[in-house]
């Protein structure tokens, strides 16, 4: 569990999706909002993302997907998170192209905030502050 004064956020691109405009904008906005942001870069497997989250001792994992593979990949990531016993301490949020019908399914597996096209970066930062699982 991080003891940093700053909120630590891992932003990740699971799978083969190369759309990184959104994740980069969010990364910069969260950094400007005073958070410590680690970006995984593209083409990461669920295993690599969980490993990075563990190494970096983050409070938040933000998953970005615009390729339609979110159900398969996010489900796998949440399974691994539970296996590593990180689910209790880690807030997981998601962004990208995620159809409305999928939002309740993602919530059920533990992904709390879903931010689609047109989302305001302040809203994302505020959501993180309100929902992280430790008190700073």
């Amino acid at each position, binding site marked *: 569990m991080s003891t940093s004064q700053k909120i630590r956020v891992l932003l990740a691109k699971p799978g083969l*999706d190369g759309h990184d405009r959104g994740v980069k904008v969010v990364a910069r906005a969260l950094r400007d909002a005073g958070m410590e942001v680690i970006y995984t870069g593209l083409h990461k497997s669920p295993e690599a993302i969980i490993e990075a989250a563990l190494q970096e001792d983050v409070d938040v994992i933000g998953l970005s997907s615009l390729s339609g593979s979110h159900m398969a990949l996010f489900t796998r990531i949440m399974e691994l998170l539970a296996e590593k016993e990180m689910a209790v301490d880690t807030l997981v949020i998601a962004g990208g192209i995620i159809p409305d019908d999928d939002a309740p399914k993602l919530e059920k597996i533990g992904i709390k905030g879903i931010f689609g096209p047109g989302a305001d970066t302040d809203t994302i930062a505020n959501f993180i502050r309100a929902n992280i699982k430790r008190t700073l």
Partner: protein
Amino acid sequence: MTTSPKRPNKDPNTETPSDRAEILQKRKNWEEEYEQLMKKKPERLSSFVTTSSVPINRLYDPTDLPQDWSYLKDVGYPGEFPYTRGVQQTMYRGRLWTMRQFAGFGGSEETNERFKFLLANGMTGLSVAFHLPTLYGRESTHPMSLGEVGKLGVAIDTLRDMEILFDGIPLDKVTTSMTINAPAAILLSMYIAVAEKQGVSPDQIGGTIQNDILKEYMAQKSYIFPPKPSMRLIVDTIKYCSKFVPRWNTISISGYHIREAGSTAAQELAFTLINGLEYVKWAVKSGMEIDEFAPRLSFFFNSHNDFFEEIAKFRAARRIWARWMREFSPKNERSLWLRFHTQTAGCSLTAQQPYNNVVRTTVQSMAAVIGGTQSLHTNSLDEALALPSEDAVEIALRTQQIIAHESGLTNTIDPLAGSYFVESLTNLMEKEVEDYLQKVDQLGGVIPAIEKGFFQQEIANAAYQYQKEIEKNERTIVSVNDFTKDEDIEIPILQIGDEIAERQKKRLERVKQERNTEKVTTALLKIQEAAKGNENLFPLILDAVKLYASIGEICDVLREVFGEWKGDLLF
């Protein structure tokens, strides 16, 4: 070479110095009166800027053009240097642009059906979207393909999939564009092989492969190998096609993805043309004559919301390219031509109130047509949410048909030439491109600039600025930060089921059982050996493809020799 203008030498747009002085005086008076009025009633906005944040004057007149600007030197006639008004003499009075809707989803069967639907509705060229595993040279069964099969495009693993994709579509009658980059040589080989099975020889097929790896490192990010071996694959393809597939556009130098990643219009144009120049230099360095390949280079641009800025971009593109290419002293006039495909801006579409996207797409298409595009894809209204449904794609195609047949935009060539505003914007665009060319030269060229992350950072900066302008309400996006509604509008969404991945897996397994494994292994080894040397890889890839080697297998042997590009972590 230059084509000599067929008109008299008198430049119709040159005013005498005394005219200019008089105009300047009048303009000054007018501006002063305007300022007086503003004291009573200020302008609506503190600054008026384009979509790319370029400040726009309240008025343009002849003095906004530099004194050495000349109609014949800077604009000229369609089909004549510097081609500002269009590459073809007759433009849309001769022939309309090709209506080419990008399509691909699910398996080859689903996409084949969509192609036939579009052709039946008046589409005039095919354009294939491949799923991510194909773009990255992975088999559909690879662990990294989890969840991606058939989602963003059609799943293609082997020649068998390609045979189904084009089943019943005569490849000597249609032209096909394929958005494929790192493994472009493999997909073109498959297309050649399918054509041969239909009895169509390689010199009869026409179309385009994107094959533009440089912008992948900058923006679209579907790279596999590092830049240098990737450039070698591209040059190999250009060389092979110049001999055996002469009607094929071997590269579509693309700004589209640069813009989608967040660049400004000028950055889109600059980075694209600079990449184009890099391909030309590599091909020349490999020993080719400029006229052997330059006429088959084509371009691909974005058309965003700002109507005049986009038109200026297209006009400037032709002029700059012609001026740059003239330095290579081509003998064939076509080597000077910048021919381009346009797609309306996907990134401009909103998930909120999605029907409004039809209007955005219409405005963007009009800019592309006034800008003289050779082919056009119009986005569907649902593309901020999913891949397009059949109904949505039909409206998108009808949009083009209405512009072509009802709007009158096609009656005359380059209708905005001579507009002081549009000519000024065109000049400004050219200047910004030249400035970027200098910067890239100072960084040591395109590949060193990519390695330093220069383009990536420029694009990320512009994307962030644009987002912040929206969030601060300095820029209005209808339905996003103004004119919003609380209730969601439900529109039908195209869903891709998991059964596609299962079917694809079974087909790939069957192909591998039925093919001659020994021959495939030998063909793959030959590619690997040749990759270590300088031999042209294209014919070897074609051989392997015909034996039903998969894209994943061919890319894997190349990965072993070339290595992989790791990408950047900049933001």
